[in-house]
């Protein structure tokens, strides 16, 4: 997995909830998990047109209490599939867990990151080292990256990626390979 992202910053500010912020609640409660069905609706309540504007390598910049509310992962699933990363000042733990489980490249606890960027600035970030650069202003800073143990889960494709890997290893380890 490439932890270095280079693209444009999409700045959102504080208190953007997962439900009806990242993605419409109806998709979360409808248990939609197909990223292709989710992507067109990313941030549509707070920033219509985001899905068309964002490309792989871009990074969402969030403020405090970002990705709050019930930890529905649909928004993270869509971001991950788009190849877009995320950096925020703070987020609830259950949302952090949903981000890790979705295999999303992200960092949290990055106090002051909102002040570093204007919407649309060029950005380069290494999610493994925590080094961050505003390519438009030239300002750079380092933040603590996510724990290595959590990054390993992300690297494996999140919880579902781990599950898929485990199942294929289990299948090849058993000679019969037949499910009960």
């Amino acid at each position, binding site marked *: 997995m490439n932890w270095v992202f280079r693209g444009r910053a999409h700045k959102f500010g504080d208190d953007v909830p997962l439900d009806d912020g990242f993605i419409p609640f109806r998709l979360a409660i409808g*248990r939609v*998990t197909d990223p292709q069905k989710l992507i067109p609706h990313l941030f549509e309540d707070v920033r219509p047109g985001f899905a068309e504007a964002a490309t792989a390598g871009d990074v969402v910049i969030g403020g405090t209490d970002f990705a709050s509310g019930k*930890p529905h*992962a649909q928004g993270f699933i869509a971001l991950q599939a788009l190849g877009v990363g995320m950096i925020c000042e703070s987020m*609830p*733990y*259950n949302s952090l*867990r*949903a981000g890790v*489980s979705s295999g999303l490249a992200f960092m949290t606890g990055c106090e002051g990151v909102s002040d570093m960027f204007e919407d649309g600035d060029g950005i380069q970030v290494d999610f493994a080292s925590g080094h961050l650069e505003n390519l438009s202003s030239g300002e750079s800073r380092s933040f603590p990256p996510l*724990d290595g*143990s*959590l990054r390993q*889960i992300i690297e494996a494709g999140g*919880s*579902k990626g*781990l*599950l*898929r890997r*485990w*199942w294929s290893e289990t*299948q090849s380890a058993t000679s019969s390979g037949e*499910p*009960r």
Partner: protein
Amino acid sequence: MGLTAIEKHLARASSAARVVPGDIVHPDPDLVIVHDGYIATAYRELSGLGIHRVFDPDRVMFVTDHDVIHATPLAAERARQNRLVAEKWGISRFYDVGQGGQGHVFPMEKGLVRPGMFLLCYDMHCTNFGAVGALALRTGSEIITVLAQGTIWVQVPHTIKVELTGKMAPGVMARDLGFRLAADFVSGRHGAYDYRAIEFHGPGLHQLPVAERIALCNTLTEIGICATYFAPDEQTAKWYRDRGLAGGEIVTADPDAGYESELAVDLSALEPQAVLPGGEKTIPLQAVELGRAVDHAYLGSCGSGTFDDLVVAADILRGRTVAAGTRFLVTPGSNVTIARLEREGLGDVFRKAGAILLPAGCGPCAGGTMGPLGSGETSICTAAVNNFGRMGAKDAAIFLASPATVAASAVAGAISDPRRFLEERSAT
């Protein structure tokens, strides 16, 4: 440094000598609980990966509690699929419609959850099981990993110690304490709380029966507390003894356990509280718009549906009637509780007062699939949450309060202080 009770549970379930906050462990659950809303989805997700079995059917339990009356054809279809999944996976412990009740309550009443157990569950309110000295952690949609592999990664949380002293005044309940404590955490008064576990200690514990402990565990969960815990004591033993059940293993914190923070609460200083609509603010009941008319009052749900909760309400209702213009819905937590209500004549108290007894389960709190609110209506209830639109119309106002306050308000037809009714009762 010693271990907190939460750390001991996690160490033991992970076959580790010790764990420290931040560690990633893979604990082995004694039981896994999945609720009706996710059974069919879990099956679809796992089948999509080519996985057609669960790790151990005997350690998996299904419960139907969020939608027990299948109010729509779609709900009936989902329930039908749930039954097929139970059959395909060989889940014998399937507490379907009419068989168990609310899945965060009845397992403690039937002895399916006992002290010392470790559980991984789909739904966040599994934290209720901390009331009897079990540890249960929520997985949400990641329950599919648990169903397949029998475990999942868990990061060991920090633990906060809450010391309870004093005794609550009549008319004040643990639900009021939970509301106050949650609000004080959110305001930053007690420091960090996100993904923290809370252990309750102190001399004030002994007056809190398990029913009250359940309410306390339940209320704190919504703010992001990942686990709440009462080490088993005489109250816990009484809970199981009264039901003719065996207890379990007692896990307690070491005397030199390392807590992240410690705080003390004087129960005698506590007053009835109310959470204002939208869940943004909790204030003393006396500061609420007392006398505001209520269209809908609702008692039950995962935090306040035990027999003890219903007794508190019945004491207020006995010889009185629910006000005209107010509908009072009562959802017992379990079939065990319904049977006991009838045995002790309390079902009649509710019915004579004009309350509506709903089947055991989540009741209106599960998204308003039954007993919802209309536009502009006001409800006072013991639901787990009160965000706008939780129980029907988005512009309905939902106040959260204790069982005593809800029952008093149903009788008055307006938001009321239960202490007034208790005083009237003691004067007669």
